[in-house]
């Protein structure tokens, strides 16, 4: 087995006393809402009522690549969320509410994975890997390791990966939904947006809950975690291909343009960058109200965010 430079050090669990009562009204309410809002991809999506029949082959090929990529992104949660759930359990004195919420979030991510895969199949076939190998490291980031690494602050992790990333995923999916005309794409995205709204709210709620008790050093780690995430992950083109600084994303951008024009649930690469820019600005403002100062982040080609 290839190994990282050092063995990951996980926190040691001390299970008792085990608090299971409500500690955060808002997050517990979010959990209760999530349980009530459960849906079923098999029966709540009209899979046969799609409008793909008249779509030309090239556009369908672009759509299956775009929706396959979404499945790859969503699949990150299949390992990351269980890791984060375990991490919450390992940390001393962590509230029960996030644990419950994350358990539901992971099921929703599984439904999204299955839906994105199935849509790609409907467009002609799911694609199992990027067309060029250069994209693979962009996805292979062992986020599950970071989530469990005792040297990574869980508060910093949640701020970067739940507050910011989940807000970005909500903003992108909302834009895809608004531009979608094809009924099956609309139905899938409408369900996903409902789930993403809760995911994003959880991240900000938890960041808010923890911020008041953070010392200066931890505030700095939170800001650094988010800055690093944006520079190393987002600027590699993980969510928005147009942000990639190392890989020529013109083929992926062309796919987005074609899929967007056909109303199959996408927006162009430039529009995604604009959404990203607004999301960074919103997060910066929201974090500032919590006393978390996000430093300027410079993109090699697009300037300062």
């Amino acid at each position, binding site marked *: 087995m290839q190994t990282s430079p050092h063995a990951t050090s996980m926190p040691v669990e001390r299970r008792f006393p085990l608090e299971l009562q409500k500690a955060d009204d808002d997050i517990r309410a979010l959990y209760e809402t999530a349980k009530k809002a459960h849906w079923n991809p098999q029966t709540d999506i009209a899979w046969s009522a799609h409008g793909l029949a008249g779509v030309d082959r090239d556009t369908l090929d672009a759509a299956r690549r775009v929706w396959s990529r979404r499945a790859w992104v969503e699949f990150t949660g299949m390992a990351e969320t269980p890791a984060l759930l375990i991490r919450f359990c390992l940390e001393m004195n962590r509230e029960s509410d996030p644990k419950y919420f994350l358990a539901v979030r992971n099921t929703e991510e599984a439904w999204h994975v299955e839906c994105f895969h199935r849509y790609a199949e409907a467009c002609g076939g799911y694609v*199992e890997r990027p067309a060029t190998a250069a994209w693979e490291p962009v996805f292979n980031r062992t986020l599950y390791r970071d989530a469990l690494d005792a040297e990574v602050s869980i508060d910093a992790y949640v701020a970067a990966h739940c507050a910011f990333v989940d807000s970005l995923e909500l903003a992108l999916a909302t834009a895809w939904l608004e531009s979608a005309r094809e009924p099956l794409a609309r139905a899938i995205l409408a369900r996903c947006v409902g789930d993403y709204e809760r995911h994003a709210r959880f991240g900000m709620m938890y960041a808010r809950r923890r911020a008041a008790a953070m010392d200066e050093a931890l505030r700095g780690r939170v800001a650094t975690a988010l800055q690093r995430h944006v520079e190393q992950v987002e600027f590699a083109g993980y969510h928005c291909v147009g942000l990639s600084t190392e890989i020529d994303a013109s083929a992926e951008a062309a796919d987005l343009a074609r899929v967007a024009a056909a109303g199959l649930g996408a927006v162009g690469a430039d529009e995604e960058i604009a959404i990203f820019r607004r999301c960074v600005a919103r997060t910066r403002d929201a974090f500032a109200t919590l006393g978390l100062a996000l430093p300027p982040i410079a993109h090699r080609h697009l300037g300062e965010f």
Partner: protein
Amino acid sequence: MSLTILDAPEARFPLRLGIENKRIRELFHNATRQQWNPATEIAWDELHPEQYDDAHLRAARMYWSRRAWGEYGAISESPALQIRFCQEHCVPDMALFFSIRSQEEARHAEVCWRMAEALGGYFEEPAATAFQGSVATHGIRKMALDPTISLEGTIAALVCAAEEIAFDVFRHLIDITVNPVARHVTRMILRDEVRHCAFGWAYMEQRMPQLTADEREGVRQAVITMIEKVELNGYHSSWLAPETPASSAEVEVDRLTWEAGLGATTEELEKPVFLKSIAVMRERMAADWGLEIPMFRHRKFAAPF
């Protein structure tokens, strides 16, 4: 510090997402259909705690608190298996199913906590520290993350052995529990546990024919260890725990809770269920997998079983 699967680089591509184990995918879909909500689907006002005296209520509170701790173990530990499924490129159906399984375990922890609360209040820890060793962990997290321990052995031990016994005891509890709310809660948990057990057998059915003789022996040893070190140490049944004042107190908790019809069983009633469960498991492992599970010994049983 030893290396875990967290220390290996991620290599998610090719990322297969289609149906590869039909039975496990069906379990995922069935679980999606059969979601339930402890907050709204249990008629809590039919519990009538005022019918019981203080001693029985206190015992039942402790019993349901202990159940909550046990279910919590599946939130804190078992999600590590899902990380393993992703890291080892297991059939995609497994990660999808496990995402909802963890949610069900969270739901079980919640409903047991609610039950303890409705009876007068949840206890955050065992009455005696000495009993923590019996209920704190089944060691699955460590096993799941350890690349030298086979996944097949872990699933066989956790699911096909430990969970199968728990399932049989739960079915027995439905037969003997008088209080309608306690019986309803038990029935709802059992409905989920059916799928949890089925997952293990479906996975092993696919994997066993592909294992070498050494790997098959590893599976056998894992099952034996789970029975001897975890089950016969009182993880699920307090009367099997080492005899100490602490475990005797827990046995008395069970007796009083059973006497009140609020959900527990006693050594006398559970013994035949436990014996039958071990016997059926042994027969099935011999018939389906060709593995000979030895007879076990325990001070509570006059003869090997």
